[in-house]
C-alpha cells in the first residue's frame, strides 16, 4: 500500500499534476509532511493512526499559493474535500486526493471523482457504533445529569483552539471567539466561556462535519468532542437528510431551507 501511495505521489509531481503533496510523515506522531520533490515521496506514510485531516490545510494561504495540491485523504478527508468544494473553498481542478482507507491505497481522484467514489462505494458513512452508543447513553440521562457531565468536561478546556485549527470546516479568517466588540464569547478558560465556545464550535459544524475525528484527536485535554459532532450529524440527517461530503454542488443544511421542514416543537 505504502509503495503504491509513494509511487503515485512521485508521479503526480513529475507530471506536474501537483506542485505540492501533503501527506503524513513516518516519524512518531505522523505529523503532516509537505513535499515538492518526487524523491521525497519515499518519506510518505499512512496508517489508521494518522488522525489529522489534511484537508484543513487547503484553506491556508501558504498552501493555496502552491496549487495544484494533492493531499493524502482518508474517506472522511475526501468528504471534507467535497464539503470545501461545495462551500467554494477549494477550487475544483486545483486539488487532488490520494485516497486511502485503512490499509489500502484507492487511487488519485479529483473532487468529482472523490464524490463519485464515496457515493458508489461508501454511501453510508456515519458515526461509529460505539460513538452512537455514547450519545444514546447521555441522552437517557436527565438534563441535570447532562449539565453536570458537560460542566466537568468543558472545565478541562484550556481554549487552545487546537480543535479549531485541526478542522477543515473551521476556515473563517476571523473566528467569532476573536471578535471582542462586543465580546460574544468570554475568552477566559472558565465555565460559561468554555460552554459558549464548545457549543458554537460544534454548532457551526452542524450539517458540515464529516466526522473525521481530527478535532478530538488534536484536543490536548481529551474532551469528547465527537459526542457533540455525532449527535448533530444524526440530527441533521434525520431532520434534513443531510449527508455532507457527497455532493460538491450540494447546499449546506444551514443556509438553505424547505417549507416542509418539521416544526412540531414550535408553539
Amino acid at each position, binding site marked *: 500500500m505504502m509503495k503504491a501511495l509513494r509511487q503515485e505521489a512521485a508521479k503526480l509531481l513529475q507530471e506536474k499534476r501537483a506542485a505540492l503533496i501533503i501527506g503524513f510523515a513516518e516519524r512518531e506522531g505522523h505529523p503532516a509532511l509537505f513535499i515538492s520533490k518526487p524523491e521525497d515521496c519515499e518519506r510518505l506514510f499512512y496508517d489508521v493512526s494518522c488522525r489529522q485531516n489534511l484537508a484543513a490545510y487547503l484553506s491556508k494561504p501558504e498552501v493555496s499559493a502552491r496549487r495544484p495540491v494533492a493531499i493524502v485523504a482518508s474517506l472522511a478527508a475526501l468528504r471534507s474535500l467535497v464539503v470545501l468544494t461545495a462551500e467554494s473553498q477549494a477550487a475544483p481542478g486545483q486539488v487532488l486526493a490520494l485516497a486511502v482507507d485503512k490499509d489500502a491505497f484507492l487511487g488519485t481522484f479529483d473532487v468529482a471523482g472523490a464524490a463519485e467514489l464515496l457515493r458508489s462505494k461508501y454511501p453510508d458513512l456515519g458515526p461509529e457504533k460505539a460513538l452512537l452508543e455514547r450519545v444514546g447513553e447521555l441522552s437517557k440521562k436527565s438534563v441535570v445529569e447532562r449539565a453536570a457531565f458537560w*460542566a466537568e468536561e468543558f472545565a478541562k478546556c484550556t481554549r487552545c483552539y487546537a480543535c479549531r485549527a485541526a478542522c477543515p470546516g473551521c476556515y473563517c479568517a476571523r473566528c467569532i471567539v476573536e471578535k471582542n466588540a462586543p465580546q460574544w464569547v468570554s475568552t477566559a478558560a472558565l465555565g460559561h466561556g468554555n460552554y459558549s465556545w464548545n457549543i458554537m464550535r460544534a454548532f457551526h459544524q452542524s450539517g458540515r462535519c464529516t466526522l473525521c475525528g481530527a478535532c478530538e484527536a488534536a484536543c490536548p485535554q481529551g474532551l469528547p468532542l465527537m459526542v457533540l459532532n455525532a*449527535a448533530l450529524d444524526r440530527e441533521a440527517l434525520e431532520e434534513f437528510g443531510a449527508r455532507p461530503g457527497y455532493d460538491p454542488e450540494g447546499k449546506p443544511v444551514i443556509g438553505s431551507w424547505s417549507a416542509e*421542514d418539521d416544526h412540531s416543537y414550535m408553539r
Partner: protein
Amino acid sequence: MKTEKADVPTPTTFEPRITAFVCNWCTYAGADLAGTSRLQYAPNLRIIKLPCTGRIDPLFVLKAFENGADAVLVSGCHPGDCHYTSGNYHARRRWTLFRKLLALTGIGDDRLFFSWVSAAEGQKFADLVNDVTAKVRKAGPFQAAHPGRKA
C-alpha cells in the same frame, strides 16, 4: 420577631426571568396588541426586539442564559409570513439543530421555547407567556451549576 424579609426569595416566591427574542413585524406587534387590548399576562418576560427571527443568532440565547435568564423564548412570524420572505425558514433550521445540542448539554425544552405569533394574535401571545411562565416556574431557577451560567 420578623422571620422573613420581603426581598429574600424563597422557593414559593421564585419569579422566573424569561428573555424573549422576537421579530419586529409579527410577535412584537402581537405583544403590542396584547398590551393595547389590556390583556393580563405574566410580567416575567423581558422582550428583546430584532428585525427578523433570521437575525437571532444562537449566541443570543447563550448570552441570555449566561446573564441570568431562567428561560428563553424565541418567536417570530408564521411560516410564509416573514417580512423578509424566508428569515424564519432559515431560523427554523438553526433552531431545530441548536435546541438538540442544548438539550444534550443540559438546557432542555422546559427552558427553551419557540413559537410563531402573528401581529393579530394578541391573545395567543398572552396565553403563551402565561403558559411558558408556568412551565418555568415548575422547572425552577436555571441551575447555578450549569456550565453556561456566569459564575
